[in-house]
């Protein structure tokens, strides 16, 4: 016999799961909808009250992305180069700086650290005209380097904050032991501390990659030709314009999915690191 209390508990459990499933459906809706558009033939998208699910499946739209807009491959390559170089620089530089802020007691340490961290709260969009002017004077506008360098600077700060926390959590005896064994400071850092903080720089890399892959406003401002445009700007070229070219719509959906794929892969592979990054004091005060 089921007691009333037990029944009530089961009902509330079911309700919670139903609510969560509904929330998950809402969260996934954009992806599901894009997929349903991207895999159907063009003719199916422009009917009045087209069905939510495709009747015929096709992958031709994905191929069309590259044949209708050959620059798409260039945009894609640009984005990969930019994020690869910038994320790599961020991991190295923030590990060095995080180590110094956590371990070396040089005069002015706290002042410099807090001056660096305080700037995180002012989004880079605020100084955009000035930043553009600086890049223009350095002849960096419309170059890949003109995005790589500012991106590195912008997401370096969070990386430094995370790496300092990570190094603070490493027992001090470890680097003392390494120093006694005859390692120099750099040697101790390189051979002992870097390997054991690997999960730290994975978190740094993820949290730099995610906003960088989708960065729009700086790229939109600084780039003007396909040779330096990242994928987020390339999307603009594929925008469907019903009055102008009808075919673009499912192709655009396919392009959007292609741009989502790296983000989704990173998210799936490093899933537990995301939670760890948020939990492990990255965003704590």
């Amino acid at each position, binding site marked *: 016999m089921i007691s009333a209390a037990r029944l009530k508990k089961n009902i509330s459990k079911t309700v919670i799961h139903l609510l969560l499933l509904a929330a998950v459906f809402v969260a996934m809706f954009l992806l599901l909808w894009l997929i349903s558009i991207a895999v159907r033939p063009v003719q199916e998208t422009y009917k009045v009250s087209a069905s939510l699910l495709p009747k015929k499946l096709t992958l031709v739209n994905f191929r069309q992305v590259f044949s209708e807009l050959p620059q798409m491959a260039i945009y894609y390559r640009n984005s990969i180069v930019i994020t690869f170089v910038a994320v790599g620089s961020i991991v190295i530089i923030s590990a060095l700086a995080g180590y*110094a802020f956590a371990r070396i007691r040089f005069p002015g340490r706290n002042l410099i650290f807090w001056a660096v961290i305080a700037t995180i709260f002012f989004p880079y969009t605020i*100084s955009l005209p000035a930043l*553009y002017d600086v890049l223009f004077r350095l002849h960096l506008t419309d170059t890949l380097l003109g995005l790589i360098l500012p991106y590195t600077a912008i997401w370096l700060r969070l990386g430094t904050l995370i790496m300092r926390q990570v190094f603070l959590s490493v027992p001090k005896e470890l680097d003392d032991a390494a120093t006694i064994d005859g390692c120099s400071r750099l040697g101790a850092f390189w051979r002992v501390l870097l390997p054991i903080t690997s999960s730290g720089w994975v978190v740094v890399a993820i949290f730099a990659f995610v906003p960088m892959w989708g960065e729009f*406003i700086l790229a939109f401002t600084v780039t003007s030709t396909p040779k330096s445009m990242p994928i987020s700007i390339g999307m603009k070229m594929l925008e469907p314009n019903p009055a102008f070219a009808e075919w673009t719509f499912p192709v655009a959906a396919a392009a959007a999915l292609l741009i989502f794929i790296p983000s989704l892969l990173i998210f799936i592979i490093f899933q537990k690191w*995301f939670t760890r990054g*948020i*939990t492990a004091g990255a965003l*704590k005060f």
Partner: protein
Amino acid sequence: MRNTLVRRIWKERSGYAFIAPLLAYMGMFIFLPVVFMIVLSFSRHEFLRPAKNMMVGLANYAEWFRDPAVWETFKHTLYFLAMYIPTHVLYGLILALLTNSVVNRRAATVYRSLLYLPVVLPLPIVAYAWKWMYDPTIGVFTHIIKDFLGLPFPFKGWLIDERLAMPSIAIMSVWQYSGWIMMLFLVGLNNIPDQLYEAARIDGSSAWKSFFRITLPLLKPTFFVVVIMRLAVLGITVQPLIMTDGGPGRTTMTYGLHAYYLAFRWGNWRMGYASAWYVMLALFATLLGVLAWKFLREESVYG
């Protein structure tokens, strides 16, 4: 005295070597632009007509105070914030409480990841995709409301209707960032000791009472973090830029977008005046941050 400081600096000189790359990047692309922005805000600086550039003292700020566009765009931004901030904080909190009450750890993790997923998707692409979903002919929302639910839809469309354009952008933002708020609240919930709830239960307090007496007050530090992290939204630019271009009319012309267009689209690119807009925004955001610090950042009451 001076000698010891010099000696300490010399002794720990490796510290400066370790942070040198950080300082080089920061100096060039963060600090220099910020200083330069303040200088620009006191100059007439038109990018496409540099011959006329010169220092003009407070003229830009005087113009800012007289410019009707300031209050107009600020109102649009506030309208957006009023819809967006409370909704996504509340929705994020509900999601955190729901996933937290799932006993099965595996299921809870799966729910959390799937709910967090929109946060990691690139914002501009999400904005484009939502723009298509809002489209009156090919979009899906009008379709669902009219054909599947059979409800009337008394608007021209979503993004092309004056009354609906800004709410539509707010809905998209709620959709994308609630998962992130959920994660912040989950961290906060984990910091509340279980004993408190047990004690309350023994005292015969109901679940609702525990929620309002224990959970909400102890989440105050999390609310502080959320408010501080959301101050950046005051400068919202990308979503209206991609989805509506400030339209229809100027209904979605936010403060950030107007400043951006002043600097990079309209006329001779008035970067000096735009910098004054940005400086005033930064001052306002700092003021709000200080207020939040004062009123929300209380040390937790327990332990």
